[in-house]
């Protein structure tokens, strides 16, 4: 609890991370927030931008190869924002890589995911990977909320160790749903556009 509070304070001081609710209002309904991914701060910024009440029930999905090695990062991920770890490396994992995410959804938590899979250097997101599609199909009642994080690609670009303090706005867009029978590519493109239109 103290770790989380300190963490939010630090994130606010460094990058602002002020939430603006454009397409939807904050709600305790179970949600999957999906956003563009351009820096290691994204996870923290989006999570910190949520109202304190929603933050405790919302778990960011974090790459095990970056957040899962213990140390300060591991401590922040485990005790700060309660990460759901995702194995990006196909050779080391067994079973469905989405299983930990589904476990968290089954437990009633909301999730934060970055469907690009990896960080991009650009202001606009790359094509989305299919994880979001599978979750949308399997959990039709969970609201999918598009989120856009601005300026963070300038704060901590790939390969840098320290963030440059900048004011980042976290824009929450509209809720999305998978339409029964909708093709994967069409759905993912629609999801990506929902993020792009907030840019």
């Amino acid at each position, binding site marked *: 609890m103290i770790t989380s509070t300190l963490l939010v304070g630090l994130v606010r001081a460094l990058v*602002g991370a*002020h939430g*603006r609710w454009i397409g939807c209002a904050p709600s305790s309904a179970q949600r999957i927030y999906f956003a563009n991914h351009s820096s290691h701060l994204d996870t923290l910024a989006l999570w910190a931008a949520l109202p304190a009440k929603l933050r405790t029930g919302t778990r960011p999905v974090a790459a095990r190869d970056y957040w899962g090695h213990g140390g300060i990062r591991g401590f922040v991920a485990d005790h700060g924002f309660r990460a759901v770890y995702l194995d990006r490396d196909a050779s080391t994992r067994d079973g469905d890589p989405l299983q930990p995410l589904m476990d968290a959804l089954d437990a009633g938590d909301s999730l934060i995911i970055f469907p690009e899979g990896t960080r991009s*250097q650009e202001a606009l997101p790359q094509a989305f990977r299919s994880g979001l599609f599978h979750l949308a199909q399997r959990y039709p009642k969970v609201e999918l909320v598009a989120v856009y994080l601005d*300026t963070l690609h*300038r704060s901590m*670009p790939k390969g*840098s160790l*320290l963030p*440059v*303090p*900048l*004011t980042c*706005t976290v824009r929450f867009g509209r809720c999305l749903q998978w339409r029964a029978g909708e093709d994967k590519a069409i759905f993912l493109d629609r999801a990506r556009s929902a993020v792009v239109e907030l840019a």
Partner: protein
Amino acid sequence: MTIQTSSTNVSMQQLSAQGKFWWVMGGVLSLLLLASAIGWWLHRRAAPDKREVIDNLNMRIRAWWVMVAVLCGCFLLGRVTTLVFFAMASFFALREFTTLTPTRRGDHLPLVVCFYLAIPLQYWLIGADWYGLFAICIPVYGFLLLPALTAFTGDIENFLERSTKIQWGLMLTVYCISYAPAVMLLHIPGYEGQSLLLMLYLLLVVQISDVLQYVFGKLFGKHKLAPKVSPSKTIEGLVGGGLSATAIGTALWWITPFSPLGSAGMSLIIVVSGFLGGLALSAVKRSLGAKDWGTMIEGHGGILDRLDSVCFAAPIFFHVVRYAYA
């Protein structure tokens, strides 16, 4: 200026630094209470569609409360706290500036140096009473080091523009703002241990001048001074507000080491340089394509919107006082 007490005439000039501070603060707090009451009343009276100007006024009054609280904190807690407060102000001001300035991958390292090295170093130098390095650290060493760091990264696109923007940001938000608490570096004979009062004097005159120029402009403003740069600045506002602020500054001579006439001159210098700062920074802001420094946070102006005149007034005030009195 003297006040009557029950038995003796106590000259205000003989009060302790603490005593003087609380006399001034008492006056400022009463004014603020009055301003808040008027603001609240105006807000209630105005039609909902005409509240914009009034809400802007109330926002300014709220910012004043914060500044007064910070100043009281500085006085109660001493010089280290004062330096920490101003270092934080520089940090957030530089963050604002950097947010509005387009930067590229190659600017990352120089920016990291600005935030994590230049800010602590500049304020530490004030605390360590090292005037010589304080005065040249950023304008000489910083000026030369930063573009060299940018060059190392090999990104030469718009190199001159990018370097300039980083230099400007650092000079304005760190070097210039640090001159406000740097008055602690001035050792004025007969004024030992009271230098924080000089900072109070500087900030009060700057801010009162800002407010009165705004008020006079709203009440009597007809002739715009620089409509493209800062549409709210008018000749009537500048003259009326500037002269009133100078008069108030003159009346505060007893908290300074200056004579009444000297205080009038100093106030005039603060008012004029503060005005020029507001004008120049408004132009910088607009060339970056923004109306407020803090457009990122809705409903709030940025910290630089409140400190733009201090950026110019503080260093000029410091060096004039140092030349003439220290």
